[in-house]
């Protein structure tokens, strides 16, 4: 009897943790998202579904922008992370851990601080733009801050390790002899990469996409620090509604809307790109 209970006892702490700090708040939020009222008079449960429809109609453009930024940020992450991961996996020799550590080093600093430092880097007369303007390479009025580019650059930078690491792990796991076998079978460098290395590393890319797309789409820090009013993401709206306007029901409804969209998106993504089929197609 005791032996049969042991596994359950082992998951008990984590289970309790999840129930108390995840499931309960989630249910409370779900309930809150259907309530009406204000901070002074209190909130009552009225199953006010209009919180959702109104939220979506008012802030729909912000939701779309968030997903769009999420997509662009994720693509930027793939483009930057893949060569880095490839280089570390195949060309870093004995120094793999050193380079991985260097890659992660900036992330020992707080997320906000990192983003603020990007603000200095990208400032109109900062190190980069100021210098280029000084050399006459850029017009005086040129600016990067408060543009979509600045926000997406910041997002891509902040979530880069979540893309590099899974791709690195996937590449690292490839048996080097499989690549040699491809070369032995008349594949040049490019063919060996396209037919063997790339398809075998795709699971890492898929994992990286999920690990970056979700947090990027829900982020609000980068838009707040690096962007302007025209770059507002849904995360900023939720934050403002919650902390500034104390409009808890709308903030909750928007949170659940975003969560639902992301969940459906990931589900479709996994369904369509089912890792196995993608590999099969890439192997042709």
């Amino acid at each position: 009897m005791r032996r049969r209970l042991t596994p359950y006892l082992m998951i008990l702490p984590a289970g309790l943790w999840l129930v108390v700090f995840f499931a309960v708040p989630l249910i409370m939020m779900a309930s809150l998202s259907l309530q009406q009222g204000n901070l002074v008079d209190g909130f009552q449960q009225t199953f006010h579904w209009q919180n959702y429809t109104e939220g979506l109609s008012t802030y729909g453009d912000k939701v779309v922008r968030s997903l769009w930024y999420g997509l662009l940020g994720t693509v930027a992450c793939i483009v930057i992370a893949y060569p880095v991961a490839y280089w570390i996996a195949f060309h870093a020799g004995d120094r793999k851990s050193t380079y991985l550590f260097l890659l992660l080093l900036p992330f020992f600093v707080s997320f906000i601080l990192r983003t603020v430092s990007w603000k200095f880097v990208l400032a109109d007369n900062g190190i980069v733009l100021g210098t280029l303007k000084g050399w006459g390479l850029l017009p005086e009025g040129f600016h990067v801050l408060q543009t979509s580019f600045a926000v997406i650059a910041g997002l891509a930078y902040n979530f880069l390790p979540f893309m590099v690491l899974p791709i690195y792990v996937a590449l690292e796991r490839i048996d080097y002899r499989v690549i040699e076998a491809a070369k032995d079978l008349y594949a040049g460098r490019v063919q060996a990469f396209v037919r063997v290395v790339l398809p075998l590393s795709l699971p890492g890319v898929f994992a990286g996409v999920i690990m970056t797309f979700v947090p990027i789409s829900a982020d609000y820090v980068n838009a707040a620090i690096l962007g302007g009013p025209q770059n507002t993401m849904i995360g900023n709206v939720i934050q403002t509604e919650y902390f500034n306007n104390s409009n808890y029901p709308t903030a909750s409804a928007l949170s659940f809307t975003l969560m639902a969209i992301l969940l459906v998106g990931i589900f479709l993504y996994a369904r369509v790109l089912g890792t196995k089929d993608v590999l099969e197609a890439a192997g042709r």
Partner: protein
Amino acid sequence: MTETQDAPARGDSATLPAIELAGVVKDYQSHGETVRAVKGLDLTIGEGEFFSLLGPSGCGKTTTMRMIAGFEEPTEGEVFLHGQKVTGVPAHRRDVNMVFQSYALFPHMSVFENVAFGLRRKGVERSEITRRVGEMLEIVDLAGREKRRPGQMSGGQQQRVALARALVNRPRALLLDEPLGALDLKLRQQMQVELKRIQREVGVTFVYVTHDQGEALTMSDRIAVMNDGSLEQLGTPRDIYEHPASKFVAGFIGTSNLLSGEVAEVADGRAVLAYGPGERIVVPLREGTAVSGGQHVELTVRPEKIELHTEPPAGDGSMIRGTVSEVVYLGTSTNYQVVTSAGADVVVFTQNVNSAEDIAARGDSVWLSWDPRHSYLIGQIGATP
């Protein structure tokens, strides 16, 4: 290096050897030091030959094979494939294919796609690919498994996929790097026979790298025994087993007894080594070998060539006395270890043909005898130029 037999005669003298290595040297940099893995190798491998590179790990056999495949470039010397110099030509442009030690199958592709890989890269027509892959899977007995993934197959099946993947390209030579190493004994023996059959069927030159002397003896037309980056001996399996050219070869291939003694007389192309009363070892002197009286020499005798007697034997062959130190009954044979004045721990295999009991027991005084032609002088003793 001692060449005990020339490359097998090829029907057409104009036919070029499949593979030729000329003065090949390979150096590696390891922790700032230069390590010479292959120390000047000359080899000629004939068309259609089943040729084995045999040696202990670290002897340079795999490096040699990788230089033929194009994964490594020799530091010095040249590699020729069918008379064409290929030194400097990358692996994907060499007309040889390799079967890797761990198969190195593409895990993300079906069996069919694995086998078709080389043909697709060469731009072979679609229908031709389907036909040739089907044919090849038939040969390796995997027809009907086209859609399987390598991960869903047993070790023996994966092995055959690897073989098919290489052979389907009709390479000028097939290089096999310890291909049976990962299989269990029974499967390995089955695959040895399989490999031999497939080689006969497709008629491709096989270069087989192994550290397993049994495997090399069973399958090869010729064997090159390598040690410490150099060629120790080149010859047919029988040659190498029966006439080991060095102490290393004698010890590495099968069980061998190493005996030594002083030459008492040389006559009629034979040297006689003397020990106690009635004891002698007679060694035939091969052409070009000269020994003189009083010289200390070493020789080998295979355990199965020695007869064990309880009484002094007759005849004019080698006979020597000893004391049995160990008896091991093995069913079909019994192994004895005998301490003699020519060498301690002389191993003798006797077939249990009709004896229900062992001939001798531990501690018994016995006589050993063998035909003079089974003694081989080893080393470079007195070799005249």
